């Protein structure tokens, strides 16, 4: 319904490609489909010929029958009519099937390229674009782009039909044809005007629908509060108000959409009457046969339907092109992390050196300046500091998720830029603040880093985290489905799975961004036990949020604004009474045993 209204929800996007570039890019994807597209074009021409030929043939036949009613003539006429109708159908069917394969392949190819481009990006790319937008470029924009093709084919075939029909009509009677053509601007203008009105009402409808959703969402989420306080009537009153406005606005939108076809019908009705009358006069004068007169009457109706869709073509075409541009822009973006070599390491001991490293996420905010740090193989290093002090950046540079601007980072004496990234990263084990799990079982997730690990290996990795006690609390053990992003598991359980995942990888360097969210004390104890196992014999770099981790570290690095201002162990640093002491009082005091023991005295008097 209402193809005139298609594609109204488009946004304006900047054009980045010249037309010539765009055409070249599009042509690149269609070249493999050239044969198919050629066939499609042929089918369009044949179909248009059959489709316009049918009424022309019928009207001619009506004239012929008046002179010759031999059985042969009648059978021939019927056979040709059926043949034209069937051929039209066959051509159309072939065209659509082939076009579906061609478009399907182009979209597939485009999606594959877009995906490959996306995974090649470094993490700075993912920081600047929300995942939803990237996803829609890869899946929806590619689909929208394919519309360009479908639309172009439709337009091609409709214009062809109109041209064929009009030229035939011209050859029959020029004056009447001009009458038919005079109708065109009215139809086009009406269709465009409707688009404009519809655009407004649709926007309002969308807004009120969002309001209705928001209202219901809020009241249903908070219904227990509303019930506790007996506020149902007040809420119901608000609902009635929103619901009524929604009714009114949606009704108006519905009215607009329902008027377009009757109004176009009125226009074509007036046109029909003009043709019937004017054509009738011409026919009476003998300048037109009855059959041709009938053709004009029918032709008018064949004419206005394609016109309305041609009227809405251009804006839809632009929407499709813009979608194509977004996809190409995604494919063409340059990754910032560039490797200079592809050295593979057979073994990694885990010594890391930062030599005068400069790093910033964007021009204005330097994060690390002339930063130097030596980490010995097997050392456990805790990084502490306020937000923005650069502690996460250090970990991210080691993983080579981001490019740094100056200095060098050496791993076992190798420049990190000269390494084969896949080979190097296989030696790293990373657990992030909110550990990410993939939809699937716990077993799948533990195995994620080593797809060919056996079930026994997975089990023993799981067992070595906190003695495997946590497995008993999963409803189906290792076969428990973790749900989308691990939502079936608690945050603590997700951490345990992530630890097991890292253990199976057996990394040389372990990087942990500790979670700030609290987990239940029993799980917390299990996680700590798990960490002990992972950190043993490995270079460990911990962005520490827990007092117990800091206390166990070989060395604590105290960071402020990208500089190391203190280092040492917990007792030494606390005794210095400097920045570390301040950090301790701000973030860690409440995690201490003293605090737990004193809390009764501190708060019960209040």
């Amino acid at each position: 319904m209402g193809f005139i209204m298609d594609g109204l929800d488009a946004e304006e996007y900047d054009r980045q490609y010249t037309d010539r570039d765009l055409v070249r890019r599009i042509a690149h994807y269609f070249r493999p489909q050239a044969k198919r597209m050629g066939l499609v074009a042929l089918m369009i021409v044949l179909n248009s010929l059959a489709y316009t030929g049918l009424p022309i043939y019928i009207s001619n036949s009506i004239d012929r029958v008046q002179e010759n009613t031999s059985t042969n003539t009648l059978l021939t006429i019927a056979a040709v009519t059926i043949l034209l109708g069937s051929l039209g159908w066959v051509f159309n069917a072939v065209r659509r099937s082939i076009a579906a394969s061609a478009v399907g392949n182009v979209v597939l190819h485009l999606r594959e390229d877009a995906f490959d481009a996306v995974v090649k990006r470094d993490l700075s790319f993912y920081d600047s674009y929300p995942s939803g937008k990237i996803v829609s470029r890869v899946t929806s924009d590619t689909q929208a782009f394919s519309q360009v093709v479908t639309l172009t084919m439709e337009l091609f075939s409709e214009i062809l039909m109109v041209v064929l029909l009009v030229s035939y009509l011209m050859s029959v009677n020029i004056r009447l044809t001009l009458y038919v053509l005079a109708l065109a601007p009215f139809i086009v203008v009406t269709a465009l005007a409707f688009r404009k009105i519809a655009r407004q009402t649709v926007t309002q409808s969308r807004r009120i629908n969002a309001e209705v959703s928001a209202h219901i969402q809020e009241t249903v989420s908070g219904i227990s509060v509303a019930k506790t306080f007996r506020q149902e009537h007040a809420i119901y009153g608000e609902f009635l108000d929103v619901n009524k406005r929604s009714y009114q606005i949606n009704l108006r939108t519905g009215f607009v959409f329902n008027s377009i076809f009757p109004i176009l019908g009125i226009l074509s009705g007036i046109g029909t009457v003009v043709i019937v009358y004017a054509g009738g006069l011409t026919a009476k004068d003998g300048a037109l046969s009855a059959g041709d007169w009938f053709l004009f009457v029918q032709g008018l109706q064949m004419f206005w339907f394609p016109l309305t869709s041609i009227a809405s073509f251009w804006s839809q075409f632009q929407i499709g092109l813009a979608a194509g541009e977004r996809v190409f822009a995604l494919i063409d973006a340059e990754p910032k992390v560039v490797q200079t070599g592809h050295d593979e390491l057979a073994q990694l001991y885990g010594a890391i050196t930062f030599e005068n490293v400069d790093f910033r996420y964007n021009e204005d905010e330097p994060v690390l300046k002339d930063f130097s740090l030596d980490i010995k193989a097997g050392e456990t290093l805790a990084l502490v500091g306020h937000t923005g002090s650069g502690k996460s950046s250090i970990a991210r540079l080691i993983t080579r998720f981001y490019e740094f601007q100056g200095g060098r980072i050496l791993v076992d004496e190798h420049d990190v830029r000269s390494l084969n990234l896949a080979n190097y990263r296989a030696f790293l084990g990373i657990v992030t603040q909110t550990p990410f799990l993939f939809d699937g079982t716990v077993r799948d997730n533990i195995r994620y880093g080593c797809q060919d690990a056996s079930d026994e290996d997975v089990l023993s990795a799981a067992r070595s985290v906190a003695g495997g006690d946590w497995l008993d609390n999963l409803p189906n053990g290792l076969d428990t489905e973790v749900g989308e992003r691990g939502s079936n598991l608690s945050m603590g359980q997700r951490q345990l799975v992530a630890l097991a995942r890292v253990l199976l990888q057996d990394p040389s360097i372990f990087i942990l961004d500790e979670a700030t969210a609290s987990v239940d004390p029993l799980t917390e104890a299990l996680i700590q036990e798990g960490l002990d196992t992972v950190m043993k014999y490995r270079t460990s770099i911990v962005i520490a949020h827990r007092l117990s981790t800091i206390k166990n570290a070989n060395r604590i690095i105290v960071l402020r604004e990208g500089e190391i201002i203190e280092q040492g162990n917990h007792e030494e640093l606390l005794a210095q009474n400097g920045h570390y002491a301040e950090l301790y009082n701000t973030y860690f005091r409440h995690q201490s045993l003293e605090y737990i023991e004193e809390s009764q005295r501190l708060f019960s008097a209040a």
Partner: protein
Amino acid sequence: MSVAKSEFTVQNAYSYNQKDARRWILSHIWRYKWFFIGAVLFSMIDFFSYSQGPVQVGRAADEILNPTGDTALIHIGLVLLAVLMTSSFAFLFGSLLVETLAQRIEADARQELYISLLGKSQTFHNRQRVGDIMARATDDVKQLNFMLSPGLRFIYETVMGMAVPLIYIAFIKFELLLVPAIFLVCYGIAVRRYVRRLNPVMQSQREQFGKLNAGLEETISGIEIVKASVQESYERTRFRRNARLFRDYFVKQGQLEARYLPFLLYGIALGFTFLHAMVLYRNGSVTIPQIIAVMGLMNVLRFPVFISIFSFSLVQLGIAGADRILHIVKAETELDENAGGHRHDIQGNVTFENVTFAYEGKDNTPVLENISFHIEAGQTVAIVGQTGSGKSTLTQLINRTYDVSTGRVLIDGVDVREWDLTKLRSQISTIEQDVFLFSRTLAENIAFGAPDTPQEQIEQAAREAQAHDFIQSFADGYETKVGERGVTLSGGQRQRIALSRAFLSDPRILILDDSTSAIDSATEDEIQQAIRRAQQGRTTLLITHRLSQIRWADVIVVLDHGRVVAAGTHDALLRTSPHYRRIFARYDVDLPPLETPDAEVNAETAAREPEVIA
């Protein structure tokens, strides 16, 4: 403050037949029967006049072939104009009537659903996912709307669009009905077959698109892990497989649609009708103008052939939507109000006696098994256990969100099932993990349900909950609207707003799911202070991650797999429970020697312990 009854009724509400989806939809339509009857009448006028078009064209052809005078053609032209205008306007009015009907029914159905939602008990709402209800109140009612307009309209237009031209053809020459009639039968069979084959493919295509999207979304959200684990090629393979499958369904759907048989049948029918007409013309029983009229009428058939594909699926979707709405509307509350039950002020003694609980319907594995313990009025109990050990479920048995499967829960010695539900719940306050705040001002949120509470009382409650200071720090203070202009409250702040509410409503039993975490020590101090104050003078059940609260609770209940494995004070548990000792093993505590290693296994002995302490 009192808990609402689970009935919420609106006076003079229209009542619909809720027996099944079809009857329900019909009863909604029946409410606006005149709109419906009007729409059908207009549609009849539309098609009768629209089909008059070809008849008048035939008359004009007659006039051209056998002229009768100068004015005759003008006359026919004017009649034709009148006929076509009547048709267009009838089409317009009919559509607007159906549209009004559809929009009204959408609004009515949503209202009906909403009223029933307000009437449902807390038990119902606790079990129902918000997203699910949202889908019914928005998408499903929209589906109902589309089913009526254009779905229902398409149906009667198809019927009339086919019947009326045939009637006219019959009037022109009855025999000419032969071919169109055969066509109609074949058409019906072809459409049925088409819909049956297309629907599953479309369904699969939609699902596959969802999979493609979800898979990609997952890869991108987890990109750090993908890269760190060097699994780019694995993800690529997965994506390509999904994208390829989608392509296959897309092509398959395209091919099915390309072979939409009814159009071929129509073309053949057109040829045979023409032949039939010509044969009759040779016999002299039909004239040329009549052939023109019949061929014009055959043209009218093209439209219903085109639209009928949509009407079937629209109606199917509408009925499915109605089913889902009705499912919610008809869902019954299992807990009875027990309006005449025990009505007293609660002292706050809570006793669990051999309580076992399993959710209905699921595999019947008990979530809680044989739980027994006793809390004296005014005591604070900390419940400790891993996720899934049954902590929340245990507290939900106290306010009868759920009823026990076997055993008893007693408050002040009376089984909760014997209490008047309203009286019981009004004296028990639960502060959940995710505190819900309405998008209103903070003052309104604190005094929710008691709009007349003086500002001083609101502020007093906020002070007690340690919320006053951070509220004052907002530019608009107590008038700050939640969720506006970037004002987002942290979990700890939300919790303290909820505690302010509790200070105002003064419940006798407070259940607190305290899993919020403070990032800095100053906030931790404030949260501690607020909760300590809330505990005073009321029985408190704490599900908490805070060791300092567990440490100093009057009773600590350790749950594991739905069983009480230990219960007692901190000191006692350090001596007897290996589970509990594990928590403190990380701290440099001088753990006392484990006294009876097997004490933990014997839940019943452990459970009796609190009584000794109390």
